[in-house]
C-alpha cells in the first residue's frame, strides 16, 4: 500500500490529508480557488509532496488513492453554468417543476431572506418553461400501461426541443419508478434519432434511473439537478484527472458521496457529490468516537464560510435528510443529514439598520478572495477572523504555519470603520461582540439541532472541527452544557481526514408501498414474496455495480433500511431492517416492533400511532465494501506540566470574564506531550489552527493526541 490522499474543498480553504503506509501523516490547506478549483487542488498536492520530501511525480506515482469531496456540482448550480436542457414529461404535468412544493419559494433561502415576504422569489428554474414538453402516455401506480406512448408524438416534441437548442434531455414520467418502460422507450427513440456517432448526439437522463422513488416533484428535480451538473462536473473532473495523471498519478479518482461512502468518479452520479465534505467529516467523527467508545457525538465543523452540524447516536450515522436541498432544489437522494449555517471565520459582521442597528454576523462570507481584511488581499469587511486577531487569539506571524501573514492593522481598521464607529463603541468591544454573536448563533443552532431530534445535548460529546473550531469551541460549547469537547489534531482538515475513513459504498433505492400492519385486524402482512423480490432486485443491482468496480460478491456487506410511517401520517422514519429477507409474517412483526421502538425514542412512547396501521414506503439497500478501519495511534502518558520547549512567548489576549487584556501563556501544539494539561486562559498554536482556552476551561492532551477541553472543576 502506498500513500492515501484525501481532499475536501470548502468555501474558503481546500483541505488535504495524506497518510503513507508507514503511518506518516501530513496535512495542508490552500485557499480555495473558485475561478478554477484544480489550481488550489494541485497547489495542495505540491505542498503535500514537499512535506513527504518527494517531487510531485514521485508523490503522486506512489499514491494508491485520491479521494475527493468536491463542490463542483454545487458551484455549477450557483453559477448557472450547466447546459440548456429539454424536459419530457407526461402531458398535463408540464408545470409540475415550476409549481414546486408549498414552500419552494423559501427552500435554500436564508432566514432573513425568508422573512422578507415582499421580495422573496421562487428560484429561477434550471429548465425554462419553453424547454418542457408533455407526451400523452400513462402508467398507473401499479405499473400497468393505461395509455401507450406514441412514437410520432415523441419525435414531434423532440424536434421542438432540438429547435430551441436543447443540449441534453431529461425524461420524467408519472409512476416511472413502478414501470420505467415508457421512459426507456423515449430514450431509445432519442438515441435512434441522434446516434452516438452524430455530432448532435445528446445525453438522455431518466428519472427511473437516477431516482426510482415516488413523489414526482422531488424525483423530477433530482433528475434535472443531476443532468444539469453532470456535464460540467464530467468536464472539470476529467480535466483534474488529466492534471493528476500528468503529475504522475496512475489510479482512478475516487469521489466521496453524501450517502457516507465513496466510489470511482467514473461510476458516480453527479448529484451524490453534493455536501460530501461535511458528511465525510461526520464519518471521521464516528471513527474517532469509536476509539473512545462514544456512541453519542455532536459533530461541528467551523470553517471559513459555514458551520456544519451533524449528530451521531448509537455509534452510527443514521440521521438522513428525506428531501435534502441542493442549492434551492428539494431532491430525494439518500443523503446523510448535516446541517449548515453561514457562520465561519470569514463570516462578515454588519450592522442591520432595519433592526435598530443590531450587529449581525454572516451569513455572507468574505470567502478566500478577498477574504477577511487581515488577509490583506484587498478585503475591507470585518470578519470573525479579524475579531479573533484583534482580541489577540491569533498570531499574525503564525497563521497557517506562517504561510499567510495577517495584518492586525487592517482588522482594526475594518472593525472600527464598519462596526465600532457606527455603534459608538471601542474596536475591541466591537470585536468581542462579533465573537460573542457568532458563538451564540452556533451554540443555539447546535442545541436546536440536537434537542429537536429528541436528544439531551448534555449526554453527548462535542467534536469541534474546522479551521476555526478549536478557536471557538469554548465559546459555543456552554450553550450545550456538554461534559467534554474533543478537538482532533486533524480538526482543521477534518473533512479530508473523514474521507480517509470511508468505505466503498452506494445506496440503491426503490419506492414500494406495502401495508405491513393492519390495526383493525391486528394482522401483519403475508406478502413476504413481494418484499423479498424488491430486496433481491436491489441486491442484484448492487452486486453488478460493485463487481464492475472490481470487488467480489463475498466482499460486499448489505444493510437494508426502510422508510416507514404510521397510516394517515405524513412524516417518514428510516429504520434499519433487522431482517434482510423475510420468511413469514412474523418477520414483518419484528420490523414493525423496531419501527415502533425507534419512533417512541424520538417522539416519546405516547406519540406512537399504531391505530393508523404501519406502512412501508421505500427500500434502501446499502452495499458496503469495508476497508481496513482507522486505527489511531495511542501514546504513553507524560507529566501534566508541558515541557519548556512547548512554551512560546506570552502575548496580550482579551478575556471577557477577566474584563480586559492580559498577558496570556502560549504553547506550541507540536511540542505538547500526551498527558500535558493547560488551564485557561491560555492559547495553543498549531500549524493550522489556534486553541483558545477560556478561563475556567482545561486543555488536556489525551493518549491519541486529541485535545480534550473540559470545564475546570477546580
Amino acid at each position, binding site marked *: 500500500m502506498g500513500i492515501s490522499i484525501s481532499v475536501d474543498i470548502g468555501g474558503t480553504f481546500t483541505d488535504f490529508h495524506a497518510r503513507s503506509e508507514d503511518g506518516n501523516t501530513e496535512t495542508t490547506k*490552500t*485557499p480555495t*480557488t473558485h*475561478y478554477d478549483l484544480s*489550481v*488550489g487542488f*494541485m*497547489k495542495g498536492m*505540491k505542498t503535500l509532496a*514537499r512535506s513527504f520530501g518527494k*517531487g*510531485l511525480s514521485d508523490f503522486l506515482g506512489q499514491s494508491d488513492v485520491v479521494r475527493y469531496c468536491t463542490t463542483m456540482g454545487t458551484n455549477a448550480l450557483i453559477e448557472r453554468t450547466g447546459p440548456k436542457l429539454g424536459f419530457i414529461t407526461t402531458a398535463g404535468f408540464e408545470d409540475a417543476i415550476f409549481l414546486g412544493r408549498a414552500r419552494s419559494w423559501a427552500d435554500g433561502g436564508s432566514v432573513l431572506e425568508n422573512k422578507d415576504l415582499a421580495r422573496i422569489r421562487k428560484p429561477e428554474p434550471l429548465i425554462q418553461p419553453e424547454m418542457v414538453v408533455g407526451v400523452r402516455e400513462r402508467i398507473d401506480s401499479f405499473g400497468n400501461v393505461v395509455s401507450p406512448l406514441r412514437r410520432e408524438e415523441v419525435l414531434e416534441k423532440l424536434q421542438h426541443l432540438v429547435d430551441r437548442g436543447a443540449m441534453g434531455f431529461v425524461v420524467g414520467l408519472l409512476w416511472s419508478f413502478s414501470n420505467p418502460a415508457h421512459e426507456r422507450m423515449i430514450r431509445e427513440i432519442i438515441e435512434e434519432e441522434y446516434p452516438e456517432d452524430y455530432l448532435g448526439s445528446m445525453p438522455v437522463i431518466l428519472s427511473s434511473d437516477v431516482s426510482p422513488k415516488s413523489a414526482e416533484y422531488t424525483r423530477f428535480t433530482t433528475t434535472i439537478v443531476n443532468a444539469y451538473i453532470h456535464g460540467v462536473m464530467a468536464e472539470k473532473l476529467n480535466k483534474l484527472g488529466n492534471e493528476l495523471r500528468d503529475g504522475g498519478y496512475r489510479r482512478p479518482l475516487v469521489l466521496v458521496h453524501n450517502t457516507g461512502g465513496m466510489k470511482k468518479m467514473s461510476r458516480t452520479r453527479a448529484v451524490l457529490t453534493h455536501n460530501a465534505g461535511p458528511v465525510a467529516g461526520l464519518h471521521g467523527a464516528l471513527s474517532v468516537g469509536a476509539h473512545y467508545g462514544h456512541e453519542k457525538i455532536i459533530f461541528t465543523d467551523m470553517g471559513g464560510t459555514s458551520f456544519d452540524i451533524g449528530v451521531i447516536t448509537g455509534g452510527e450515522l443514521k440521521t438522513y435528510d428525506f428531501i435534502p436541498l441542493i442549492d434551492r432544489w428539494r431532491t430525494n437522494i439518500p443523503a446523510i443529514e448535516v446541517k449548515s449555517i453561514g457562520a465561519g471565520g470569514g463570516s462578515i459582521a454588519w450592522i442591520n439598520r432595519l433592526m435598530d442597528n443590531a450587529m449581525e454576523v454572516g451569513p455572507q462570507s468574505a470567502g*478566500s*478572495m478577498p477574504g477577511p481584511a487581515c*488577509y*490583506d*488581499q*484587498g478585503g475591507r469587511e470585518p470578519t470573525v477572523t479579524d475579531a479573533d486577531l484583534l482580541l489577540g487569539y491569533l498570531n499574525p506571524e503564525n497563521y497557517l504555519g506562517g504561510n*499567510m*501573514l495577517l*495584518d492586525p492593522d487592517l482588522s482594526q481598521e475594518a472593525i472600527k470603520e464598519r462596526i465600532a464607529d457606527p455603534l459608538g463603541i471601542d474596536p475591541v468591544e466591537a470585536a468581542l461582540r462579533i465573537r460573542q454573536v457568532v458563538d451564540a448563533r452556533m451554540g443555539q443552532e447546535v442545541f436546536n439541532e440536537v434537542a429537536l431530534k429528541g436528544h439531551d445535548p448534555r449526554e453527548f460529546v462535542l467534536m469541534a472541527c474546522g479551521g476555526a473550531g478549536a478557536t471557538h469551541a469554548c465559546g459555543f460549547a456552554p450553550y450545550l452544557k456538554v461534559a467534554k469537547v474533543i478537538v482532533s489534531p486533524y480538526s482543521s482538515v477534518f473533512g479530508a481526514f473523514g474521507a480517509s475513513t470511508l468505505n466503498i459504498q452506494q445506496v440503491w433505492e426503490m419506492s414500494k408501498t406495502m401495508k405491513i400492519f393492519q390495526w383493525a385486524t391486528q394482522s401483519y402482512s403475508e406478502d413476504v414474496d413481494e418484499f423479498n423480490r424488491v430486496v433481491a432486485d436491489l441486491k442484484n443491482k448492487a452486486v453488478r455495480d460493485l463487481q464492475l468496480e472490481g470487488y467480489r460478491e463475498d466482499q460486499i456487506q448489505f444493510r437494508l433500511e426502510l422508510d416507514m410511517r404510521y397510516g394517515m401520517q405524513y412524516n417518514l422514519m428510516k429504520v434499519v431492517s433487522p431482517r434482510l429477507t423475510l420468511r413469514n409474517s412474523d418477520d414483518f412483526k419484528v420490523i414493525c416492533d423496531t419501527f415502533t421502538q425507534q419512533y417512541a425514542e424520538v417522539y416519546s412512547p405516547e406519540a406512537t400511532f399504531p391505530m393508523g396501521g404501519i406502512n412501508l414506503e421505500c427500500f434502501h439497500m446499502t452495499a458496503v465494501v469495508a476497508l481496513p478501519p482507522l486505527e489511531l495511534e495511542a501514546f504513553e502518558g507524560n507529566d501534566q506540566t508541558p515541557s519548556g520547549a512547548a512554551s512560546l512567548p506570552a502575548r496580550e489576549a482579551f478575556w471577557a470574564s477577566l474584563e480586559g487584556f492580559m498577558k496570556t501563556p502560549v504553547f506550541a501544539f507540536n511540542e505538547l506531550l500526551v498527558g500535558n494539561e493547560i488551564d485557561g486562559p491560555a492559547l495553543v498554536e498549531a500549524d493550522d489552527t489556534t486553541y483558545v482556552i477560556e478561563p475556567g476551561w482545561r486543555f488536556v492532551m489525551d493518549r491519541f493526541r486529541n485535545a480534550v477541553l473540559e470545564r475546570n472543576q477546580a
Partner: protein
Amino acid sequence: MTMATGRELFNNFLNDEPLPRPVFVPMIRGLLSRVDGLSMERLMNDPTLWANGLVRTHKLFRFDGVVVGLDFTLMAEACGCEITWEKDRPVASPPLKGLYKKPEEVGRMKYALEVASRVFEVCQKDQACIAAVTGPITLADMLFGPGKGADHLEEIKQLMVQVAEAFCKTGPDVLIFLEGRPLASTKINLSHRKIYNTLKNITGYYDVKTGLYVQRYAPSSVDQFKALKMDLYVLGPSTDGTLPGISRVWDLGVGALGVGLGLPLDDLAAARRLIKEGRKLYETTGGRGIFFTSLGPATRDVDLETLHELVQEFFH
C-alpha cells in the same frame, strides 16, 4: 524518452526540484521590433501584432520561456501618466488629472493583459510563462515624482492589487515586479514589506510565484532585497551597468526558490564567462535554484547573430 519542455524544466525550478539542464528565459522587449521590423510604438498598440511578435521571436530562438509586460511605463500609463515616444521608447510624465481607478482597463495595459492571455494560452504547453509589471515603489515615484512616492504607497496599493490580479488571471507561472532606483536606492522598510506582502497574498491565491527584478542598484546593497521575501530574484544592470559577482547573486536566492542569472546579450565573451560560471554553480547545487536570463530587458540594439550564437552554445 521525450525531451523535457522549457515549461517542465522551469516548473522544476519553481518546485525546488533539480533541473536536468539549465533553463534560459531571456526578457525580450525591444528585440521584438527588430525581429518583426515594426516600431515598438506600433507593436504595443496592437495586441495582435504584439502577441504574434512575441510568439514568433520565441519560436525563432527556441527560448525556454516567454515574458510579457516588460515595460516600466505600462503601469504608469495605466494609472494616469502621459506617455510620449522618444526614439521608439515610451517616456512617462506624472499624471495631471489624478489616478485612474481601473488601470487594468486602460490603454496599453489592457493590451498587455490581452497579449499575456493569448501568448500564455499558446505557449504554456512548451514554455514557461512569465508576466512582468512595474513594482509599487518605482511606480509611486513615477506617479508622484522622484523621491515623493514613499508617502503615496497606500494610494496605489489597490491599483497594484487590481493589475496583479488581472495578470494572475492570464495564467502565468511567475509574476515579476520590476523595480528601479526608487527601491534600489533606499533601505527596505516596513511599508515596502507591507505592500509586497499584499501583492504576494494575491499571487499566492492564484498559485503564481512572485519575482523581483531590480536594476540600477548599488552592488553592495543587493542583500537587502531579501527582506521582501520573494520567491525568486532577477538582477538587472547595477548602477555601473554590470552584474555583481556571481556569489553575491547566488546569495540573494538563498532561502528563496533561487535567482535568474542575467547574461549580457550584446557581449558574447562576458556572456560565455557567466554561462561557464553559472553552469558550475548549477552543477554544484544539483541543478536547483538557478536559471539563466538576460541582463535586463533585451533591446532592439542586440545583435541577432550574436544572440543566435549564444543560444546555440547555451543549448548544446
